[in-house]
């Protein structure tokens, strides 16, 4: 068994001719909350989709918990996409039953408690809920699993600040030494306090992989400040 939870070696994904990931190699440990940070089109979502098993890489290798992407890794990976994926005719209760049926690690009681805390009625039809509330339902389902790897693609972008706070606390309290969380987001300031490590990614390649403590203690900066420095946009005159 590998010491690392996620191992990517020379991972490349090209759409038409442009590489979304370009020889991307990284080894990520268990027990960490990792921020995947980059500008638009930098390859964050592509990497997450490959890890979730819904996108095939053009070349390179990926292992999660020592296994190649497949049915086995899907049973230990909990993925939150940007898209809302439940059918609109389903009730919130149906979503709970669905996850209970397919995921052995799903904690039904935890899901009900989280929904209650977020003020989402379990008997509501998804069609009647706002986009933000649907996203909350989806996030609750994903975070109620006892997975080894959580892949969260923009988990807080569409929810209100109060729910954002609750979600970040949930991610923190979900901590287990066996599992890691990879969060992709633009809202660096919001997630800064929860992440242990971060990856700066640009044009499908790693720009920086470091710990939050190193940045704060050695560089004397916040990750948000460092991000703005590294990815500064210069006006064209």
């Amino acid at each position: 068994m590998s010491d690392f939870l996620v191992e990517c070696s020379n991972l490349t994904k090209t759409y038409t001719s442009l590489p979304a990931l370009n020889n991307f190699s990284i080894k990520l440990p268990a027990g960490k909350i990792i921020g995947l940070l980059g500008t638009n089109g930098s390859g964050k979502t592509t990497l997450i989709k490959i890890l979730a098993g819904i996108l095939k890489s053009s070349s390179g290798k990926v292992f999660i918990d020592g296994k190649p992407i497949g049915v086995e890794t899907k049973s230990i990976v909990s993925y939150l996409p940007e898209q809302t994926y439940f059918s609109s005719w389903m009730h919130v209760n149906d979503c709970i039953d669905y996850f209970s049926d397919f995921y052995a690690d799903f904690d039904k009681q935890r899901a009900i408690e989280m929904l209650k805390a977020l003020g989402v009625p379990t008997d509501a039809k998804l069609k009647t809920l706002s986009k933000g509330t649907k996203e909350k339902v989806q996030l609750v389902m994903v975070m109620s699993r006892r997975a080894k790897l959580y892949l969260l693609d923009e988990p807080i972008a569409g929810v209100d600040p109060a729910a954002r706070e609750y979600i970040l606390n949930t991610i923190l309290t979900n901590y287990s030494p066996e599992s890691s969380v990879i969060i992709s987001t633009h809202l660096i300031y919001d997630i800064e306090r929860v992440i242990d490590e971060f990856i700066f990614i640009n044009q499908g390649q790693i720009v920086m992989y470091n710990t939050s403590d190193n940045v704060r203690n050695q560089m004397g900066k916040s990750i948000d400040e460092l991000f703005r420095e590294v990815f500064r946009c210069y006006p064209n005159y």
Partner: protein
Amino acid sequence: MLSKLLKYDFKALKRILVPVLLCVLGMALIGSISLTVSLRVNSENFILVNMISSLITSFMVLGIIASFMVIGVVILFNFYKSFVSNEAYLTFTLPVSIKDHMLSKMISGYVWMILSAVVIGISGFLIAFVGTAESGLFNADAFFAMIDAISYYFGDWTFKYTVALIQIILMVLIYPMTVLLQYYTAIIIGGVVAKKNKLLAAIGFVFLFNFVVGFVYQIVELIAFASLDLFTETDILGAMLSRMQIIFTVLIILFLALAAGYYFFSKHLLENKLNLE
């Protein structure tokens, strides 16, 4: 996991198809009643009633025919939603093999197709034998006339007929699965190939597949009947039957081969080319 997938696929289809099939039965009932009225109120004083009831019957029959298309679209759209739309993000992150995903969609779609065909058959029976009853509730005369006609044509039942009957039953059972897989494959290709407008691409591939497969069927028919000369043949019925048997055999093999080809090609695409961009 297959049983769990089946549970949700049946549930998703049941939600729409049960009301559709109930509508079909309702239309058959209304059509039967209006046909009975038009047959029984056969007087010059009731021309308007007669016209309206005939019109209602026609609409109901058209409605029943259209519902078969609606059922097909519902089954295919359910497949499209699960495998190509946003719902695919849920479908393909489940810890389930592609084989189980495919089997679940094949079984649920097939069962609903057969069930729908049975309901539509019952509806046709209702209109044909209840709607045409000029007295009482059932047109026994028409029913027994049909039995007599069958006995007349197939009275001297031979082995040839048994083989043909088995072939027809096999074709009726295999063909819906082949068609279902043909459409599923077209949708998957559309989903893999197109960056945007995946639904449009899927519809395009459905037409392309229909054209190619239809062309192959035509060639099979042409070859089978090429040697049949209606002017010189003495036993036309026998000659037709033997050629039909050749066609049936070729078609059964073709349907099975196509179904297997569609299944393995779809599985290959989903396992190796899945791109939820």
